[in-house]
């Protein structure tokens, strides 16, 4: 979290990593709710970023996301994380239907020298709020997922990162052929800049399959 010094606008590397990993947790929950990967009744309402956010009550999903956030925070502090991708796939066929891509640009000077940056917390929260609103409104243009779906998370890291024992290196990046892409807003803590993009399977192909 941001250093709670007298001047609240100072952002350290650890604080920025915590903000980004927390954002990813809430974004993942929001995506799972909005895309109906899990039923509505398995989510509970909380207040975050000035918005009513939905968090899963399913213990398995909760622990998965919390473990994931802890690892992402560690990689962010080391400056080794390039991208995080949340993949939504069909349970029956295993086909990838959507890819929520969160690409991260790290200020290497902060990682190497340990300096801090200044940015208003309110500004960061406002930027994150805009992204959350866009995720919620994405159901207007994303195709309906009529079949049962599951999700998975991929992390694009530097090649010198040691693979934790709960993770494994995957040769399959779970890509979508000829996807439609929609670029969402981004937010910047001055140390980490997160760009959001959603790519989804072409609607016509889904209609053909139907």
């Amino acid at each position: 979290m941001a250093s709670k010094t007298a001047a609240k606008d100072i952002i350290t590397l650890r604080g920025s990593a915590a903000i980004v990993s927390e954002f990813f947790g809430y974004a993942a929950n929001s995506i799972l709710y909005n895309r109906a990967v899990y039923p509505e009744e398995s989510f509970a309402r909380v207040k975050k970023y000035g918005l009513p956010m939905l968090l899963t009550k399913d213990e398995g999903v909760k622990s998965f996301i919390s473990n994931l956030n802890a690892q992402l925070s560690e990689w962010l502090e080391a400056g080794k994380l390039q991208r995080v991708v949340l993949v939504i796939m069909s349970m029956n066929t295993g086909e990838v239907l959507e890819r929520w891509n969160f690409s991260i640009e790290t200020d290497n000077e902060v990682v190497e020298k340990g300096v801090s940056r200044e940015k208003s917390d309110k500004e960061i929260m406002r930027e994150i709020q805009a992204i959350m609103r866009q995720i919620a409104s994405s159901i207007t243009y994303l195709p309906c997922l009529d079949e049962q779906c599951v999700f998975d998370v991929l992390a694009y890291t530097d090649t010198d990162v040691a693979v934790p024992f709960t993770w494994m290196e995957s040769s399959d990046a779970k890509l979508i052929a000829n996807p439609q892409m929609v670029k969402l807003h981004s937010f910047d803590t001055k140390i980490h800049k997160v760009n959001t993009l959603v790519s989804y399977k072409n609607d016509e192909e889904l209609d053909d399959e139907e």
Partner: protein
Amino acid sequence: MILRTPAPKRARPIEPAPIIESPPVGSDHRQLAIYEDPSSAGPARREPSQQSEHMLCTYQCRQMVKADFLDALSNAEKQVQDYQSKLAELNDNFGKADEERKTFREKLSYVEQELAAAKGREQALHDQLLKEVNDSHERLKKELELSSKLQAKLENEQNLRKKAESTAAAAEDKAKELEAKLGHISKSIEKEKKRFNNELAQLNRDSKFSITKITVDLEKMEFRAKSSEQEVELLRKQQEDLQSKFSECLHQKSELEKRLTSLSFEDDSPKESDVLVKHLQEELRNYESEVREARKLKSAHDSIELMKEKLLEEKSRRERVELQLPKLQEYELKINKLEDELSAWKLMIQDIPGVSCCDDVPLRISALQKEVIDNLKKLGEVNAHLKQMQVVLDKTQLDKQKTETEAALAKEKADRLEAEVKRMNLMLSAVSEERNMLKIAIEDFKSKNEQAGGHASSSAMQELESSLLKREPYIKELEGDLFAQKDINTRQQDEIKSLHDRLNSEARKVKSLERESDRLRSEIFLLESKLGHGDFSAANTKVLRMVNTLAVGNDAKQTIEALQSELQRTKEKLQALEEYKSQSGNSGKLVDSYMSGKVAQLKEQIATLEKREERYKTVFADRISVFRRACCELFGYKIVMDERQRPNGIPVTRFTLQSIYAMNDDEKLEFEYESGNTNIVENGYTSTSEISQQVDIFVRKMNSIPAFTANLTVESFNRRTLS
């Protein structure tokens, strides 16, 4: 052309200082020459006349007067000289004043000429300006017309593009719909066709077979029936006969038995009785065989009755088939309709270019879709390019306007300079003309002065020459100004040329920059598409995936749920069937057996899944207990986790930690964990002074719970060991 200097006036004979020849003093020649000067010599003439009147007195006085006269003459001569000098001075002054007047007149005329020239120039400039304004207006109008035409063209093209897009989208939708319909219909048609064909063939075969069979059977049965009826009648008769005979035989048998019993007591004629017995036995056997035959006939009769029943069944079957024959006709009509539809679809397929059979349709549609996608992409690119071109066009128009204004300003400058140069040239020519005229005038004056004689002309000449000399630097200055203006003009023209060249080079730069920006935009688009696609370089990046057991557990749960729902449905079906079974007889048994088999199967599946779940639970419980014990031994705290709900409904996980070195059971730490954040909860133990101090230092200030727990563990350990 307006002359800057007036026409030279004729030199008046007395224009220069009137030359008065004063008689030489003391000369013998005493003739008084009266020189009449009409203008300046006027007052001087009167005095000599008065003197002459005095001179005309008597002889006597002549001598006296002569002396007086001579004195007066000398005085007069002196006066004359004075007057002459004065006259000369006055003449000089007059000449000067004349010259000044002339100069002023010249200046005035020059100024008037300049004014007229300026007015003329102004008029010319005004006309030129009007021309230029009109030209620029016309150009502006033309450009406005061009731009309006271009805008109209642009709007037309945009409309056409929109129309094309809408038609493409509509065509695409139609194609999709048609494709889907076609696929469905073709599939359904094929299926139905196959089914109908099969059914038809089967029905035909069955019907034919049944009909022939039935007819044959019917004939057979009829024949058999007839023959059996005949046989039955015969057999009945025989049976009656045999029955009568049997009854007779029985009667005889009873009599014979009586006889035999009676004969058994008599020994006479055993041979006859044996023969009788044998005969009777033979007859009995014959009768028994006849009875067997009668039984056979009876069974045949029963079989005939069965055959009759079968015949009736076959008849009913035949009737049913005959009833189904119109349905067959209906099916044939349907098949004909479907065949017509199929032919119509085939004709439609033939109309579609590039498609020869049904299998080519999806390929063609996919190719068309790809083409549509490519065209849409191209359209998007063209739109982007068009917008860029519009932006560039606006920019170039602005630049063009700027350069035009600059060029106009430069032109105006050049024109002004040219006008100034012309003016200077005119000035120079006028000045040179003046100089020439002055020279001519001087020469005339010289010639006139040579005729009149005297020194006075030399001074005037000298004055003229001095005035000329004075004018020469002025002329040189003017020439210098003219050259300077020419230089400035040439410099301005060079600047204009350089500006034009700069404009052209800037336009070329703009075009190259546009091309560069298009290329960069396309590159950015490609890169963004690659980024969105998820491509990465294996040299710099590796993809890691967290082990995800959610789907597996979900699978098991979902299969259990599905099986349970299926079990409920089968149970309901079973109940319904049992009810139906109570109403009907035989069919219920079959359904019952099937359903019971299915239910047993499902129950087995549920049992295996429940067992698996139990195993998972036990394994998990084992693992978690091992983990808890390990945590307790490694970190020195027993951790108890439980879920609670806050008053606002948000679920929260609470962890209760108790150190293994705790002195009593009240020494417990409580933490709440919610979405990645862990907060300490105040209780009786943490509100004590020692612990609260440590909480303030480690948790609140340093924000480190592990440091707090480690410190507490060490303190508790020290306390325990010391105690």
